[in-house]
């Protein structure tokens, strides 16, 4: 990544002035400006970017994560921000040390659109979002126990053998696939099949940690 100043977004200078050392570095890649913010002050910086009248990044285009093939390299949580009225884009990144628990602050309080996006990042990468109202798996099912599929240490075919995957699929009771949320509404817990109750009791919630 070469940092040129040709197409650098003016938001970077403003961020540096406001947040100083919390802006760890910036770069320009293919005309897009990328700003790295420290995890501690990321929420504050994102809120500032949204509310500051000169910035007005009111639209969260996308929220995702990137893990590099280089195992030493940090996992990044990526926010694609856009200002609808200024027609400007900015990419904000938070680097997470993979040896520590992967936790960042949720931005659902800033952009409602982040709700499902954060759930997807949690599902696919195992990054937890502090303060998310309903952080659970979204694309994989609740009891999925193989891990987080988009991590680089996750093999393309999954962690479990094909035989084990088939066994689990055949022995699964599709009727029992209700989330805890629905169960508590319906109070159908008592009517559940014994195996589902047993699984809930054991705490099988799909986290291989």
């Amino acid at each position, binding site marked *: 990544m070469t940092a040129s100043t040709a197409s650098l977004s003016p938001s970077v200078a403003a961020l540096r002035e406001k947040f100083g050392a919390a802006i760890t570095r910036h770069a320009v890649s293919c005309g897009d400006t990328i700003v790295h913010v420290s995890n501690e002050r990321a929420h504050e910086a994102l809120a500032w970017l949204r509310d500051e009248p000169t910035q007005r990044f009111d639209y969260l285009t996308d929220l995702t994560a990137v893990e590099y093939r280089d195992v030493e390299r940090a996992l990044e949580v990526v926010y694609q921000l856009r200002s609808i009225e200024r027609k400007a884009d900015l990419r904000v990144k938070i680097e997470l040390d993979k040896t520590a628990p992967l936790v960042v602050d949720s931005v659902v309080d800033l952009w409602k659109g982040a709700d499902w996006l954060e759930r997807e990042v949690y599902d696919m990468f195992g990054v937890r979002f502090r303060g998310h109202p309903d952080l659970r798996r979204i694309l*994989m099912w609740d009891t999925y126990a193989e891990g987080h599929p988009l991590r680089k240490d996750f093999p393309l075919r999954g962690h479990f053998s094909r035989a084990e995957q088939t066994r689990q699929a055949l022995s699964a009771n599709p009727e029992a696939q209700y989330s805890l949320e629905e169960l508590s509404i319906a109070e159908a817990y008592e009517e559940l099949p014994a195996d589902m109750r047993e699984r809930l009791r054991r705490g099988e919630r799909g986290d291989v940690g």
Partner: protein
Amino acid sequence: MSTRTLELDLSTPGVDSEGRPIRVPLGVRAGASEDELGGEHMLVNIGPQHPATHGVLRLVVELDGEVVLRVIPHIGYLHSGFEKLGEYRHYNQIVPLTDRTDYLSPMANNVCLALAVEKLMGLEITERCQVLRVIACEMSRVISHLVWLGTTGIDLGAFTPFLWSFQERERIYDLQEAWTGARLTTSLTRVGGMMADVPEGWTDGLRDYCRTFPKTLTEVDTMFTRNAIWIGRTQGVGVMSAEDAINYSLSGPMLRASGVAYDVRKDCPYLGYETYDFDVPVGEHGDIYDRYRVRLEEMWQSVRILEQALDRLEKLKGAPVNVSDPRVILPPKHRAMSDMEAMIYHFKQVMEGVSTPVGEAYLGVENPKGELGYYFVSDGTAKPVRWRIRPPSFLNLAALPKLCEGVLLSDVIAINASIDIVMGEIDR
């Protein structure tokens, strides 16, 4: 009772010491207290196999009588792991995966992929290629909106426009087949160019379509726009304010129906869209009716763009489609079979793929459903480190619980239809 909380700690199983699930208090809204009727809330499961969910979407609806208290969408039934698969493929090998995401507009997805990789490589494509891609995008917009129109009509009890729109859609599929050889799995683009130029005489077919298709649009307009039943079912239902639409990251017709004039083609142009003469329809009420009006008008505008693009194509007759860089574009087959250098390039491209410089690029295009964005991170090899799809209907569907607050159960079907979802893209 207080407002509901769903702060399940995911490290713990979410059950108490006796093994019962942690109870989630019901969401009781102001005015609807329990002792009023003493009725129980009912839980209705819609889908995943239900025609009105437009694919394998499952909705769990909590009802108080006929009033919806909340909707919990469940997705993932069509999850195919495209993003993961993309990390194991060369850039040109990802093109067939994009066909299968939003399978109602495969050509537009192909175009987005090629553009994103070209942005990553800093590659300039030829003018004829740009025009061909504009044609592909606008054809996709028309067929996608036609499916939306037909299926939404069916959901609300109108069967005839469904037949009209699918008839018209079929004609575009014929053109698509003549161009790419496939109706759905088009795989039209390549990095730096196209899989093929349009065949001889193909443009006449599209011209004919542009001439005759507006008749159907007029008929649909006559059938729906001032239809009392249609208006009754759609006006004031599923309203989203402009502020909320932005906050919920809605895009495409969903965003514009709420009064936000944001169209990627106008505001962040690609493929030379700024040189075409077309308007972006914007609604004002943000309800289902406005979404219908916006999509209907977009089809008119697409026809306008197609006509202009066809004129340009005429002028660029014989101009090259692909870039001339032999490291990016495969040499013609006859040269690969007779010329040593061309054969080496052919071999290297097929075996090693097109490598990109280290860097990353996000590119958004205005797809029929909304802003489709592809975000590539490259470490300098021929396979991306990360291929992220910014799925427009995923984000649009995420607003469904908000749109369905306090509506009737039958409106849930209408609202869900108005979002224009395609599960292949949501689940990826």
